[in-house]
């Protein structure tokens, strides 16, 4: 257990949940722990079992098997006592519409045994922290999505939980609100609150989460820090090549040839983009005339075998021009992703040379850092659920 400040405050041990009349387990032997002051990301595709897991941890669902402890309380044995330890911020707006925003906070605190005067003081402080003081006494219906989300987080904090569960906390929010929420979560972590969050905005969450558990089909696929996960599974860099193979060349053989280059950990074919190439921001997208010349120079300067030929090929127009959907309209093109063990720049030359050797035209090159989302896709596949 990567303890930060003491024993785990969330312990999930061999958790199983099977819904009535279901053929398979929604959660199938899940185990993990969360330390005080740790932000733990529970990620997974839709229907992977993360909501069920959080539902059991927050006492709203009853486990079929296994043991769950939150804040030192066995959730199955004493759910009411466990609820004193935790707070939940759901994805949907479940604010009490019969109450004003301020009353939502005050009443919530009193539901947790906080005296009314103290509850009012806490509500005022939290409304201030979340920028809601001016609209604290209006109707909930007048709140925007971002305001409702801030109010729900503020509400969750009124009884000072040991563990905070958040389901998609920044879903469909503007950047300002997202910044505010991530900032508040960091502060809570600093105060020792354990945070369990589920989100699909993984790359954004990767900046704040300490550890990530990726679940699918109710099982834990991996559990580590975001950095270790990315380095271990996705490699140090990604090189995406959009190429047009020579007539008669087998796309799979071409992909395999690239995979055999030194420094390439894995080569995989991606779906051919329908829009302009180079979707990943910051990439070297769309190899036009200038780009082709640069690539040629890079390959030649690298002094690697084939570099000179590449320059010649570029000059002869074998490198795709414009890189966009122009030309042959994208037909016959391939997108190949190379997961690299080292720096992408050093591999660019050999990769382009290998393509040139097979008379394949390069339409676009895109270099990027691998992300948590890449790890996620790697583990859970590309098929939508």
């Amino acid at each position, binding site marked *: 257990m990567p303890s930060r*400040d*003491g024993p785990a*405050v969330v312990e999930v041990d061999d958790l199983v949940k099977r*819904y009535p009349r279901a053929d398979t387990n929604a959660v199938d032997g899940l185990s993990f722990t969360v330390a*005080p*002051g740790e932000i733990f990301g529970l990620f997974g595709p839709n229907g992977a079992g993360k909501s069920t897991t959080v*539902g059991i941890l*927050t*006492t*709203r*669902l*009853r486990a079929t098997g296994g043991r769950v402890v939150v*804040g*030192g309380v066995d959730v199955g044995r004493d*759910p*009411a*006592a466990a*609820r*004193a*330890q935790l*707070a*939940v911020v*759901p994805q*949907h*707006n*479940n*604010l*009490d*519409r*019969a*109450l004003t925003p301020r009353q*939502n906070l005050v*009443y*919530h605190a*009193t*539901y*947790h*045994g906080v005296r009314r005067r103290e509850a009012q003081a806490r509500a005022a*402080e939290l409304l*201030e*922290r979340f*920028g809601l003081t001016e609209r604290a006494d209006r109707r909930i219906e007048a709140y925007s999505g971002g305001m409702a989300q801030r109010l729900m987080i503020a*509400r969750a904090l009124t*009884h*000072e*939980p*040991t563990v905070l569960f958040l389901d998609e906390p920044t879903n469909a929010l503007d950047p300002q609100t997202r*910044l*505010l929420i*991530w*900032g*508040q979560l960091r*502060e*809570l972590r600093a*105060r*020792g*609150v*354990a945070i369990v969050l589920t989100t699909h905005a993984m790359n954004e969450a990767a900046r704040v989460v300490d550890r990530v558990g990726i679940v699918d089909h109710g099982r834990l696929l991996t559990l580590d820090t975001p950095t270790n996960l990315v380095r271990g599974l996705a490699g140090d860099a990604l090189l995406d090549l959009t190429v047009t193979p020579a007539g008669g060349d087998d796309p799979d053989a071409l992909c395999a040839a690239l995979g055999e280059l030194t420094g390439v950990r894995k080569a995989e074919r991606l779906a051919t983009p329908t829009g302009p190439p180079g979707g990943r921001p910051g990439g070297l997208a769309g190899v036009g005339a200038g780009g082709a010349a640069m690539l040629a120079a890079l390959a030649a300067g690298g002094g690697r075998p084939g570099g000179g030929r590449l320059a010649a090929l570029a000059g002869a127009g074998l490198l795709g021009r414009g890189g966009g959907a122009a030309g042959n309209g994208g037909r016959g093109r391939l997108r190949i992703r190379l997961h690299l063990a080292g720096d992408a720049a050093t591999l660019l030359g050999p990769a382009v040379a290998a393509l040139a050797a097979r008379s394949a035209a390069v339409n676009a090159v895109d270099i990027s850092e691998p992300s948590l989302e890449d790890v996620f896709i790697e583990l859970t596949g590309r098929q939508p659920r």
Partner: protein
Amino acid sequence: MTALDTPTPLRPATEPRSRPGTGRVFAAVLRRDLMVTGRELWVILVQVGLTPLFMLFVFDTVLGSQGLVGRGFADVFLPGIIALAALTTALQSVALPLVKEFGFTMEIEDRLMAPLPTGYVAIGKLVIATIRGLLAAVLIYPLGALMVGSAPWRPAGLPLAFVVALLGAWIGGAIGMSLATTLPVQRINVTFSVILTPIIWTGCIHYPWPRLSSVPWYQVVTALNPMTYVSEGVRGALLPGVPHLPGWVCLTVLTGVAVVLTWVSVRCFNRRAIQ
């Protein structure tokens, strides 16, 4: 204010929270519903007043003036109307909000997440429904008297009438909670009609139960409706001279039904709240 503001240091989060007392949490949950009830008093008045007062007006004032209904009918009818108000107001005031709170807004989650056994949240709902039902009964008594110009008045019978109305309201709340937590939202309206209409028309609101001996099969049907015992209990307490079911029979049956329906409704609530 910015995200960089330093929050006031509160309890160190690593210290386990002590669980607050059940009584205090229950009182806090109840307080919320009481506050909302207090604010909706006029809604209760409308909810309570319209149907029974129109019934009184038509059956007594209109039909009475045409000579179709005897002069004593209002006295027999008003206790039934008080009983009806207690039971149906409680039923509606728990069922309709619960359908909403358990529906897509899931507003009740905040209270379900209170450190309190879930059954207490359900009991809290029944308590509030009973208070609303009793309030309705207490309000309809003078309003009805004003409408028809007179009312049976027997202070000695008021305690029994109150207890019977209380049990009736509790039963109404339990029926409402069972329906709201088990039926799919899209069927709730039709079920209300299917359940409420027979409760009203076989509940001996308009007539004393012993006089149904002229239609024995209907007398049996009405004996199966808890509403009958509420009507008869209130009527017997306020009009001992009119033939009625004995008070102890009404109290025994209503207590038994209340116990069974409390168990059923809390169970339905728990099953809905925790899957």
